[in-house]
């Protein structure tokens, strides 16, 4: 990991790493330590004193049926987003891979949602589904579906799943297309000569060969749905109606900044940190192998 030929020790390398290390300590390691410390404290209702309570905040969380609900809901949300956006991008990439002329045009037209901020994606979808003027809400009304995500929790959840998946299709599509284009054409041709049609070739050759990409994308999509969808939820539902779209990250924000429950919010942060560490380990252990066919 270090070069065989390198410069001797001197003060210079310390100066080079200093800015990054300073920022890491002040804004990453110190706050993370604070979160851990605060998760052991309970602040009294008037903010006068703090009491060291060991794991009581965690006990309160684990005994709280609401927290369990949020946990399950976050997993459900992540799985739905990953499944929907990965399925659509797999199909689109499969077809785009067949196109000889115009493949780059399709790619250009399919990748731009990546550039749209989550909160803007939320704004776009909430506008289309707005119960009073939204175009899709209007069409749904024509076929007899009464759409109001301000009142209906299931519809609110569906809406954030749509918005979050829509934004992620671009990313998944790019990785699937790259993986498919890396498959040797001779393999596909050999199968075609043996009489396998496009559908059969897709399921018996292409799909198994891109499975490392599928696994990689699964991890990335779950991380995305967990941590990068705050903007979507904040714009579309603000966690409502009646908390039916609150996810783990959203709850850290609302308990900490709106509910001002410092200890509880910190304990949730610590749990989230443990989850990120787990996901990062999975990503590093398995994703390194994703190029091995």
């Amino acid at each position, binding site marked *: 990991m270090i070069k065989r030929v390198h*410069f001797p020790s001197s003060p*210079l390398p310390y100066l080079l790493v200093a800015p990054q290390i300073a920022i*890491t300590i002040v804004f990453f390691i110190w706050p993370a330590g604070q979160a851990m410390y605060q998760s052991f404290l309970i602040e009294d209702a008037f903010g006068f004193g703090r009491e060291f309570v060991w794991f009581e905040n965690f006990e309160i969380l684990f005994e709280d049926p609401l927290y369990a609900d949020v946990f399950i809901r976050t997993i459900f949300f992540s799985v739905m987003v990953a499944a929907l956006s990965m399925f659509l991008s797999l199909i689109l990439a499969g077809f785009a891979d067949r196109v000889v002329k115009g493949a780059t045009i399709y790619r250009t037209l399919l990748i731009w949602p*990546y550039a749209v*901020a989550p909160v803007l994606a939320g704004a776009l979808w909430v506008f289309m589904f707005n119960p009073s003027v939204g175009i899709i809400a209007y069409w749904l009304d024509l076929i007899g579906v009464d759409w109001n995500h301000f009142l209906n929790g299931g519809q609110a959840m569906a809406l954030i799943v749509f918005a979050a998946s829509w934004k992620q*299709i671009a990313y998944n599509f790019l990785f699937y297309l790259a993986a498919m284009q890396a498959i040797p054409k001779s393999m596909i041709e050999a199968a075609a000569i043996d009489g396998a049609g496009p559908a059969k070739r897709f399921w018996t050759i292409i799909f198994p060969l891109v499975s490392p990409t599928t696994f990689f994308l699964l991890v990335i999509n779950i991380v995305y749905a967990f941590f990068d969808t705050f903007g979507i939820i904040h714009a579309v539902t603000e966690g409502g109606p009646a908390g039916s779209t609150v996810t783990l990250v959203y709850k*850290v924000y609302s308990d900490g900044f709106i509910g001002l429950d410092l200890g509880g919010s910190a304990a949730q942060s610590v749990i989230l940190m443990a989850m990120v560490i787990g996901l990062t380990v999975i990503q590093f252990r398995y994703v390194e192998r994703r190029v091995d066919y």
Partner: protein
Amino acid sequence: MVENRPFFDTLTHIILILGVILIAFPIWITFVAATHDLARMSQAPIPIWPGSHFFDNLKLALEGKVVSGVDMLPVWKMMFNSLIMALMIAIGKIIISILSAYAIVYFDFPFRMGFFWMIFITLMLPVEVRILPTFEVVASLGMLNSYLGLTVPLIASATATFMFRQVFLTIPDEMLESARIDGAGPVRFFFDMLLPLSRTNIAALFVILFIYGWNQYMWPLLITTDSSLSTVVVSIKEMLDSAERTPEWNTIMMTALLAMLPPILVIVSMQKLFVKGLTETDK
């Protein structure tokens, strides 16, 4: 294509066009909404074809008259704030990452691996997870409502450092050997050899980080209570809230359009660099 199947080829294009429609539809509706006047946008069903008020809405938004009766920062100032934030984050991340990757790959010094692991840890601590204590640190440093508070806490980057480390490791050792024989010191070697050799990587990383910086939401939402610093992405939420009282969707959607325009232009015009940056950083 492998074989001649005219029907299937047509089907391929039909499915891809449907995909493009699905992807583009929300953006199309946003564009259409931004071209009609308030009267037209207040009655359902809203149109799906553009109207003639595009420039009126553009003018209203740029002057800060998005929601009538609410004094808002002109959108061009918000976009300026977003631009400053995006550039500071992207350039800051690139500078500190390339410097630390250089130190870790090209120097032998005590605690080298210790520093490497410290940088690695930042990967596991996204801002969403440590939001409240980080906010407290920034507040106690007096950095609330400033460009520095907005950007510096987001600047440490493990992924960018890893990417530069990867790039440096592929540069042959003979480069350094010959540079040293020619009498180049560490500073000279960095500016005259490493920097030019990693030019495309820097550009690719810049594309990704610019989009990342422009689209920041939760952090600026908390750090900037002073409206003169609000970014265009964050202010959309405030406009949506007001839309429940006065649904001025024409100007709100114009603002949304303006807010997503710069990153979309960056992606479409620098597609090759974007794909390179995306596949190299996410490992």
